[in-house]
């Protein structure tokens, strides 16, 4: 029987075709439409977030590839170990501590996304 989930058989009330164990509510009843939202996971400040693409293979052994998407948040104040983006004859990415003093911070990298297929 499909509508009785095996782990919920004890003490189950059959509600709306979903079996529920008393004291341990099935969260899917409350919010049937919520699936994990990648926007919320990756973007803290939507108005301040822009994306760029990695150009080149110099970090391949770290798992960062040409064409990967860099998520950049301009609202964050960087610490020295944060990855940041600045302009130096082109956009450049590295640790904040490596950014030349003469250049202006463009934004802080919050994620790099690699799609395998």
């Amino acid at each position, binding site marked *: 029987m499909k509508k009785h989930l095996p782990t919920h058989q004890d003490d189950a009330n059959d509600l709306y075709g979903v079996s529920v164990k008393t004291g341990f509510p099935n969260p899917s009843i409350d919010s049937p*439409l919520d699936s994990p939202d990648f926007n919320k996971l990756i*973007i803290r400040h939507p108005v301040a977030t822009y994306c760029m693409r990695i*150009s*080149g293979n110099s970090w391949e052994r770290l798992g960062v590839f040409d064409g990967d*998407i860099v998520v950049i948040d301009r*609202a964050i104040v960087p610490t020295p170990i944060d990855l940041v983006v600045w302009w130096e004859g082109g*956009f450049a990415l*590295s640790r904040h501590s490596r950014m030349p003093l003469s250049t202006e911070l*463009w934004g802080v990298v919050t994620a790099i996304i690699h799609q395998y297929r």
Partner: protein
Amino acid sequence: MKRSVFALIDCNNFFVSCERLFRPDLEGRPVVVLSSNDGCAVSRSNEAKALGIPMGAPAFKYRETFRRESVVQFSANFELYGDISRRITQLLTSITPRIEVYSVDESFLDLSELGITDYEAWGREVCRLVRQWIGVPISIGIAPSKTLAKLGAAHAKTHPEARGVYSFIDKPAAEIESLLKAASLRDIWGVGRRLAPQLQSMGIVNAYELSRLSQNLARQLMGSKHGAQLVAELNGTSCFGLVEEGTPAKSISRTRTFGEDTTDLGVLEAAVANFCARAGHTLRRDGLMARRASVFVTSSKHKPNYKTWSREVRFQMPTADTGRLASSLIKVLQAVKAEHMEYHRAGVLLYDLLPKESLQTDLLGYVDPGAHDKSNRRMHALDAMNLKYGKETLRFASELLAQSWQPKYHLRSPRYATRWNELQKVRIII
């Protein structure tokens, strides 16, 4: 009674600033953004202004100047500007929901309820926030009336010592007087190109003199209602409230009757683009997206041959994106030419609305425009979307169009903020 306080948030050289955000190397260089048909300059960097390139400068006339001075030229990239504009509106809305999106690069905020004590400090913080978070420079004018707020922003923009902000609140009368004396009539909201020469011929050459006009004379010169209101606004009495929208609607419409009937498609496109910016803002504010939109145009009922025309657009993916709305509607709008009518009134209606939560969105928070979107032939005369450039610019753009100038996009920058395949590149420094 609580006193009214308005802020005008005005983006500096907005289109150029959007281009520079993704091209920081253009900082300090003369840059112009041309109308999409590459007709005329619709946004100029300060360096370009210093070279004497006027607003609306036709590209062909200034080709030599552009070459000699290495002026960097762009075709209007409306999708980019629309995205940056949306971000700014969103940020401002998080400061206060009492906002009126006046045009693509100007918004009024009602500050009277915010309990701000130091308005200039508040303004500088907003400037810093928009500059850092979104990446474009703005100027802010703060005043008891919208008309003064606009003058304040214009003053802040041209006076570096103001550091981006001018507030009329609690300023000594003498200071306000000298600022108004320095403000030309054309900078005054609601005076415009038609009224300014008329006032000048009466010896009224600046905002101060206009503000000293007797109510009677003001009524005579500028119409009974408008004249009195304008003078009152210049004296710090608010007559024009914030134009806000009401509760979430089943449909959203924006319409306008033109000052004078026109056969100029550029004027029509400008109006439609502005309707889209404002209606799009309302959509996003209410968390809605539109599945359908229509655009309509009518001729005057009081003239023979009364005609109405309209077209509907359906979006495969519902949208609240100003750029998408405007580009689709302007595309279908081209067919109105065949009607050979005088445009009297036009409007945009968004309907079949649905809450945006019911959709999967992409990483940047809105629905993927879709690979099928062939509406690359975007934004004819979107220059025009900004009211402040005035009708003459528009007329000029479409005169050039009339000389069978085909839309050209070769100078358009990538749509850095809205297309996955047009993102800016970044290299890793080891």
